[in-house]
């Protein structure tokens, strides 16, 4: 029951086993941030100045442990500026080197060797060694959610070769293992005591000046190995509600409001001195129809609902236009995303035929369970229920307290609205939510053909061959999966006029502020 706070469960940012994220420019053309900053390309980036950035978070859930569970976006932002992960999401290629300069797979795609970037030093001057990385990865693997963050890698499979090489061994062949090292593998010095973790020095682009109850001030790390950092300092402010965050920016008290949502964007739209930064394919709000049993087990019924929804209206009403129509296949930002699948549109006649054929009981009403964790989630459920009523199916929206939803309804209810806060590859979503033995099989979907295609995709190293198998995987998902994905919401940040060089990446790519500068 969080109060109108955006509580992205970043744990879902665990890495998919395969698939590369193309530059976010794919899909509906280059992300247009209107109004484009005047002459952004011609201006020369200047260093200096303090960037005040606001992010959502709850004062009661503030944590400092890089390997802990960061329920707050503000905590994750601070940690990702102080500490480095082995690799980070990139806009040109999927996995851009950071602490690990390069990596090579073994022929059977099971053993991967990462070499540490030269010149990488902790803030207190000591160089980063393989032992530090191995200790950090083992500590990460030992956390309660460790298994889901490094799937397929046992603690014993993490070892060091000499001072600058780290070896990761996977249980199964995994062509995209480096994806795993992108968002959670923060590296600390070896044997840092648990209570000293909060003040441990990292190797990131910024050093800690002060931290107090979720707010922090970070100053530039001058001899950062990853290149020249332009900003003098970054002040991170924690905000309880998106409304307060947007108001702070409109009142000019902060320079960047991270992840504020569509309504704030429209409010700021009228202001000429405020940039609205749109990051497409940022958030999925699928409707999950339980396939394992219950009223929606029959694929024809699921198909009927997919035809009953008016996707354009959902994007226009729920996202105020800040989003793109989707086609019931998860992983829309993935280059391997099957764009050629025919875009499903509303067909009430066909939907009623399918419902009749499946003998669907129209007399009783069905509960669609949702929470209000994300602005727009409850609204999407409400609008969906109204649209589907035109086929005769009566749906009653039940809004549950966040805790109750994750305990009682998630993974169990016949019909509920879920959300995925990060956009990853098709294979990531397959491994996470659709393969029969998936840890978070939201729809309880068991499809042998789908499982076979998934395992084949993992094991093939050749790119062309993999693309063909991935397309086949998406066809099965498009036909029979438990998901109804009507659209993808854009990630929206608001920025003051002088801010330049903000990251354009969806999901957790938005924390890379090392290239940001102020034209003030």
């Amino acid at each position, binding site marked *: 029951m969080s109060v109108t706070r955006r509580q992205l469960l970043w744990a879902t940012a665990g890495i998919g086993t395969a698939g590369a994220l193309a530059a976010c420019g794919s899909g509906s053309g280059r992300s247009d941030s209107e109004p484009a900053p005047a002459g952004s390309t011609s201006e020369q980036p200047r260093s200096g100045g303090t960037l005040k950035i606001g992010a959502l978070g709850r004062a009661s859930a503030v944590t400092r442990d890089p390997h802990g569970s960061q329920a707050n976006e503000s905590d994750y932002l601070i940690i990702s500026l102080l500490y480095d992960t082995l690799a980070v999401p990139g806009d040109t290629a999927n996995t851009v080197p950071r602490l690990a300069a390069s990596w090579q797979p073994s022929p059977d795609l099971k053993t991967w060797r990462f070499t540490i970037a030269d010149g990488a030093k902790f803030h207190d001057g000591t160089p980063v060694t393989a032992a530090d990385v191995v200790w950090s990865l083992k500590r990460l693997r030992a956390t309660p959610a460790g298994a889901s963050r490094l799937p397929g890698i046992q603690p014993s499979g993490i070892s060091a070769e000499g001072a600058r090489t780290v070896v990761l061994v996977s249980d199964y062949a995994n062509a995209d293992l480096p994806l795993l090292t992108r968002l959670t593998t923060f590296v600390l010095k070896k044997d840092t005591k648990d209570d000293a973790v909060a003040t441990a020095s990292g190797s990131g682009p910024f050093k800690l000046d002060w931290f107090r109850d979720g707010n922090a001030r970070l100053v530039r790390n001058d001899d950062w190995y990853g290149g020249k950092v332009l900003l003098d300092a970054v002040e991170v402010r924690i905000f309880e509600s998106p409304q307060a965050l947007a108001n702070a920016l409109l009142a000019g008290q902060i320079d960047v409001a991270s992840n504020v949502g569509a*309504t704030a964007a*429209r*409010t700021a739209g009228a202001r000429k001195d405020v940039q609205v930064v749109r990051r497409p394919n940022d958030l999925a709000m699928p409707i999950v129809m339980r396939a394992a049993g219950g009223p929606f087990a029959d694929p024809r019924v699921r198909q009927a609902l997919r035809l009953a929804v008016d996707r354009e209206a959902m994007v*226009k009403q729920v996202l*105020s236009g800040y989003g793109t129509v989707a086609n019931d296949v998860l992983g829309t930002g993935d280059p391997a995303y099957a764009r050629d699948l025919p875009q499903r549109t509303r067909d009430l006649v066909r939907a009623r035929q399918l419902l009749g054929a499946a003998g669907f009981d129209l007399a009783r009403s069905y509960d669609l369970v949702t929470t209000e964790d994300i602005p727009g989630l409850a*609204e999407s459920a409400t609008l969906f229920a*109204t649209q589907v009523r035109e086929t005769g199916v009566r749906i009653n929206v039940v809004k549950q307290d966040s805790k109750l939803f994750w305990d009682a309804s998630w993974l169990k209810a016949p019909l509920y609205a879920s959300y995925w806060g990060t956009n990853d590859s098709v294979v990531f979503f397959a491994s996470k939510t659709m393969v029969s033995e998936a840890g978070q099989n939201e729809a309880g979907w068991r499809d042998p053909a789908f499982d076979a295609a998934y395992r084949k995709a993992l094991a093939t190293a050749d790119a062309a061959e993999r693309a063909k198998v991935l397309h086949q995987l998406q066809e099965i998902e498009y036909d029979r999966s438990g998901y109804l994905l009507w659209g993808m919401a854009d990630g929206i940040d608001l920025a003051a006029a002088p801010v330049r060089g903000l990251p354009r990446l969806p999901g957790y790519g938005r924390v890379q502020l090392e290239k940001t500068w102020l034209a003030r």
Partner: protein
Amino acid sequence: MTVRKLVRTVPALLLVLLALAGPLLAPHAVDQPVTAPYATPDAVATLGGDQLGRDLLSRLLSGGAPLIATALGIALLVTTAAAALGILAALRPRLGRWLERAADLAILLPAVLGIMLVALAWPGGGRLAVAAAATVLGIPYAVRIVAAAAAPVAATGYVETAAAGGERLWYLMVREVLPNLRATLLALFGLRFVEGVYIVSIAAFLQLGPQPPAADWALMIRENAPGILLNPWAVAAPSLAIGLLAISVNLAVEGIAARPTPESAL
């Protein structure tokens, strides 16, 4: 009931009638989007759109009755319970001291925490949970007020003579003490009605109580708050409605419960 008293109750009656007849007058269906989200007032939606583009005027017209019913229920329950317990406390001082301690306990408990605990523990949550929370939280404070007002009455000669003369407890409460507390109880009722509206609004802020897509003024205020700069009516209209409701009810109650002895000028 002099005419002057009747005149003061007219605004409240009018507002309640409008709220009850609201759903019939609503031009559009309550949960049917008719325009863009937070659209400014236009021909289709006279007061513009709410967060989902539904017609604000229709939701305003049909959002009154549930809130008034909830607040009325809370006010009635709290006032009757408080009257019974308050008078009992005045007539039986030993019991009164225990009620006094319970009231102290309740006053210490922050109302917002009380609402959360009761509403979350209530199976299914929703409007009933918040009404129960408001009642449970309201009674101790109200008992304190009624007990304070009933104490001097209980100590008067006529109550003691009636008690010594053989009357039973319930007769003393209902026929001897209660008729002399009319002003206090009516003022308390007005107060608890407004308090009921206030608690439903705080519950809506904490996402408890009435659930979407229900149309309820308190819920509308919180739902549409993010878009206040786009369509100010989305928040202004329900807020004005709640303000008018509170003022008119209190005006009516003060009219009916005109002080027994006209207040002396200084």
